């Protein structure tokens, strides 16, 4: 039996008359890489913000890591990691200072921080960069570092909000290797992306259109269901019916 880490039922967020997220229900299991797709404005970010305790849902139900987003948002924050498309590290701090700071505010002990940062530097091959300002290291490295920092405290779930924006395919591939390693550790990965080829890397994906989840399943299931050869095509078929778009 698969252990459920995220479970939502009719989760809804309204801003005035505007329904950003419209009664979505889904489950995410432990150690899974769950892709969350949709055009800009489809409601991905809003949904993710609700699940990470940043914004209170209007109605519905959502449990993250066994905790209720309505009543225990602060508890949730201790059990999740988060990395956003805008940079989540401090550019004017060095690599090691960032690690120490985030380790510290997640309540790790000095010993844990020391051990974790050594592991992390070893793994990322960052020995020569630890004293450099984050500002001065390449974008791909920053993203890898950001992910490592987001899972420093061994959360149950890590939310990645378009983590690979703006980097070349080779670096993206390396980054996905890191995501797999993360999932192997038993950390559930909840990732939004607009690179559709990346969707193929996920265990399961959901596609949001106009605030609703219009499709959910493994990449293969979805391709079969929509009789498409690629995720691109699936997405195109779904998105054609969308009312909301980028503009």
């Amino acid at each position, binding site marked *: 039996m698969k252990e459920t880490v995220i479970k939502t039922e009719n989760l809804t967020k309204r801003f005035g008359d505007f329904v950003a997220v419209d009664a979505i229900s889904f489950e995410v299991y432990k150690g899974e890489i769950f892709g969350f797709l949709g055009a800009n404005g489809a409601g991905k970010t809003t949904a993710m913000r609700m699940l*990470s*305790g*940043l914004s209170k849902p209007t109605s519905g139900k959502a449990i993250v890591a066994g905790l209720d987003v309505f009543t225990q948002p*602060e508890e949730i*924050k*201790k059990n*999740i990691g*988060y*990395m*956003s498309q*805008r*940079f*989540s*590290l*401090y*550019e*004017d*701090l060095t690599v090691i*200072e960032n690690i*120490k*700071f*985030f*380790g*510290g*505010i*997640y*309540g790790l002990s000095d010993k844990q921080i020391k051990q974790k940062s050594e592991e992390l530097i070893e793994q990322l091959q960052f020995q020569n960069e630890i004293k450099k*300002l984050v500002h001065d290291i390449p974008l791909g490295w920053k993203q890898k570092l950001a992910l490592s920092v987001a899972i420093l405290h061994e959360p149950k779930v890590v*939310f990645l909000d378009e983590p690979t924006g703006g980097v070349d395919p080779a670096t993206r591939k390396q980054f996905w290797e890191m995501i797999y390693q993360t999932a192997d550790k038993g950390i559930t990965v909840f990732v939004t992306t607009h690179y559709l080829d990346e969707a193929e890397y996920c265990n399961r994906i959901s596609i949001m259109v106009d605030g609703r989840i219009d499709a959910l399943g493994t990449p293969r299931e979805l391709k079969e269901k929509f009789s498409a050869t690629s995720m691109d095509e699936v997405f195109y078929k779904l998105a054609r019916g969308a009312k909301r778009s980028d503009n």
Partner: protein
Amino acid sequence: MRIMKFVLQKEFRQIFRDKTLLKMIFIMPIVQLLVLPMAANFTVKNINLSIVDHDHSSYSQKFISKIFSSGYFKLAGDNPSFLESYVLIENDKADIILEIPEGFERNLTRENGQKLFIAVNAINGVKALVGSGYLNSIIMDYNNDIRSQLLQPTTFNLMPTIEVVSSNWFNPNLTYYIFMVPGILVMLITLVGGNMTALNIVKEKEIGTIEQINVTPLKKYQFLLGKLIPFWIIGMIIFSIGLMIARFAYGIIPIGNIGLMYAFLAVYLFTILGFGLLISTYAETQQQAQSLAFFFLMIFNLMGGLFTPIDSMPEWAQWITRLIPISYFINVMRMVVLKGSAFSDIQYHLLIVFVMGIILNGWAVINYKKTS
């Protein structure tokens, strides 16, 4: 509490990493405190006087030399005509024109009465008033000289005179910078504290790092304390440096209790940092925060009683000054430093500033919760 260690470490690292910022925080106040108080001097001296002498008599010569021996006046123009003098005023080369009419000596000695014409550039009304006042009293003096020369000494003495004996307490030499240094120090701390706090928080909003902080278990109050405490400490440090500059560069030794000043400073910093915090909750970008901070700090600067007396402002403006925290601190600093006022003299000031601090910080925290 352990978390605060990490938060403060981060804040201090970021402040101390930005060298331009660091210069602005520490060097700028020091330089300004060393230079600017000397500029703030209302004492009216070196008044440029242009004299149009139509008489050229021994009386007018004596009169003129008496004027310049007073030390208040400097001669402007070389024996000009009235029109030339007027041009001197237009060019700001002269402040006052004194016209001695033809027959000054003759009329004065024979006809018992003679007019003098004085024209003053009155754009700066106070300067005009004080300058012409000096000239007037010299004229009265000269007048008395002539009388005592021409009249029997006995008759002259019979005129009743009232002497105004004045004594200046707390600052007998009327040194202007003693008055300005404490006020300018307070102003500099306010500028640095209010401004930097506002910008520092908005910077995280603008860059987006605040989003990351929001998903961590770090509590809002911990984050905000992390922003306020460093500037609170920096404010204390600047103040201490300022006191040393006051002591060693200006020779100002506070008469009152230094501990009392620090106590007031502690509360005041709480209030002014709350002001910065409040601004940061209303601004999305650093540009907005800066414009807002500029707007208010400028008002603090000019309406806080640092340069012009609050008592002289219109009633409605005086009400505004009561809402300005700095007006209380400037006042208190001047009272404690110059007059040795004690706690009982400033307790209401302290209370008001404290209440303001509660309101500003409370307002900011409520607002901060709403917007995020």
